[in-house]
């Protein structure tokens, strides 16, 4: 194994699947690195360089820069998937789903069902989530709870390079539409990642730490915030089960309920908002199906119910941090 970044892990998953299957094509704004200019080929590879190098290996027939037409090219990718390809589309920032929402949630999500199972949409939509770059309310949201609402869409929130590579590989091989949510602050995170492609099954939470006092469920980059918090708490003698669901659809409800049965306490750490989000969804799950095991109220650690500010001091207070998680856990343990 070799240390690789989250960015490299995603790039390798794409390269591996494109080598393995000629039906895999890549489409999106600037994924080929800036088409049409007379300067350097492959100069970019997406705004954060994730798809760099793919154009030179696979050519412009399989790595396509598109116009700024999300409804058009995501709609086309859905049609291409239904007609036999296995497209991977880049919806740069997940906030942009506003201009192609119909395509994602009414079309891709429902084709198999509404076509009576006569066709399918093996499509992967890669998209960036998360705050932390001081780029305000329309480039920083975490919309996986929105995607998770829709039956027919699978939704992945990898928190590490290893998971990113394995989950993206599974996404491309999957026969349903998958939304693959890349947290933009994780691109430089490094970890041991195998060279060859491997798949991680959907709906299997990762138990990152074991403890008897409290269950912490954290998603995407919040897994790292929760990991730090758990280390602080351990020094106080509070031991946490730390679960990363890794996929919000399907959701590994069994692992969450089993953990709460053992600990009796639940804190959910989510960068998505407090209303109608994964934190409230998981809280509702445990309130309904695990109530008898609870020894304290469930606590959600989320941003406030506001759009996202750009000013660095405000954004830092918007995003859940280690101190808030530690405080929340102390509160449920002391209840």
């Amino acid at each position: 194994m070799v240390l690789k970044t989250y960015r490299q892990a995603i790039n390798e998953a794409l390269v591996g699947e494109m080598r393995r299957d000629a039906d895999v094509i890549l489409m999106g704004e600037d994924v080929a690195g800036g088409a049409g200019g007379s300067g350097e080929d492959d100069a970019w590879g997406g705004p954060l360089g994730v798809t760099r190098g793919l154009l030179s290996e696979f050519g412009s027939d399989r790595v396509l820069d598109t116009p700024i037409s999300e409804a058009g090219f995501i709609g086309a990718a859905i049609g291409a998937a239904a007609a036999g390809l296995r497209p991977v589309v880049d919806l740069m920032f997940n906030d942009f789903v506003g201009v192609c929402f119909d395509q994602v949630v009414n079309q891709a999500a429902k084709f198999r069902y509404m076509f009576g199972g006569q066709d399918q949409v093996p499509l992967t939509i890669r998209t960036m989530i998360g705050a932390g770059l001081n780029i305000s309310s329309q480039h920083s949201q975490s919309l996986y709870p929105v995607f998770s609402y829709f039956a027919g869409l699978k939704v992945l929130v990898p928190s590490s390079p290893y998971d990113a590579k394995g989950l993206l590989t599974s996404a491309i091989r999957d026969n349903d539409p998958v939304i693959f949510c890349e947290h933009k602050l994780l691109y430089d995170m490094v970890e041991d990642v195998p060279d060859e492609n491997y798949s991680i099954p959907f709906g299997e939470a990762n138990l990152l730490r074991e403890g008897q006092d409290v269950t912490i469920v954290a998603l995407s980059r919040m897994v790292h915030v929760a990991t730090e918090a758990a280390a602080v708490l351990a020094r106080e003698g509070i031991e946490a089960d730390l679960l990363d669901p890794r996929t919000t659809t399907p959701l590994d409800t069994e692992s969450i309920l089993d953990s709460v049965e053992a600990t009796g306490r639940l804190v959910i750490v989510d960068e998505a908002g407090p209303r109608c989000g994964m934190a409230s969804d998981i809280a509702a799950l445990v309130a309904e199906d695990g109530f008898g095991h609870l020894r304290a109220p469930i606590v959600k650690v989320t941003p406030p119910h506001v759009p996202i500010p750009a000013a660095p001091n405000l954004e830092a207070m918007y995003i859940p941090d280690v101190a808030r998680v530690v405080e929340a856990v102390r509160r449920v343990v002391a209840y």
Partner: protein
Amino acid sequence: MAIDLNTADPEALRRRLALRDDPVQRYRRLVEIRAAEERIREFHASGQAWGTTHCADGQEAVAVGLAAAAPPTDLFWVAHRVHAIGLALGCTLESVFAENLGRTTGSVGGIGGSFHLTDVGVGLIHSFTIIGTQIAQALGGAFASQVLDSDRVTVAVFGDGATNIGVFHEALNLASLWKAPVVFVLENNHYAEFTHVDAVSTVTPLARRADSYGIPWQVVDGQDVEAVTSATTSALEHARGGAGPTLLEMSTYRYLGHSRSDPAAYRPEGEAEVWHERDPIKVEAARLRALNVVSDADLSAIDESVANEIAAAADAAFSAPKPPLSAMFTNVWAPEPAP
């Protein structure tokens, strides 16, 4: 990939291929569609069917001409006014009736209802009820043909209303850019729901919008099944030969209101009557009679045999079971996990 002619219902495929070389069969299908939609309205009027329904009375020549021109391997992504094009492409009467009646033998097992039909075996991918979306999907299907080196052409069928939605413009730009093997069929029946086309756009003919994207276009007499067949055949050949997309505007008229609840009171007096004079069934009957291909007795015999088929198909649809609870949970997800 599910699209495979070997999976086609042999009866649907036979119905599709019957139109190819036989003008009498095309005439017969016009009659069948008119009568089938009349029967569908009776299901609703009598409370036997639920939801809504959108009929294409007056527009049958567009449906039949498209189906006659295209081989069954070409793929159609069409709009919600789908009974006509569905029956033209080969969907059986029973599968269309049963879908309207919410039965297991319906085109998509009762999940879709009146305006959602699929029969990939004869190239009907689906009918779409969010206006215009299928234009992008058809483009994607055409792009797949290019990547897969297939000679399959894709056809998008949409109404005049869809030319005002963004995805129409985005898809035309991409189709031109990619030189995609797609035919855009703009079925101009002059009303988007209740609103006349002239009230919502200043460009006449609408097809001229294709000029913005460097796509060739043509206005076709949508009341004449042979004109539709001929124009579509040329556009399909153009696309199949690698020359890229075409936009065909089929000029036609919707005899009835938008859906079953609309009496179309907004139309000026006498407007529908003008179109009725060039009714697609009348136009084709006159041609066949003039060519002496059929006699009046033959035409009556067609009417009678269609009526019998419709009665039998309706009986069969009524006797099919309603979907079981398990059907609600089927086809939400891929049947097997990722390898």
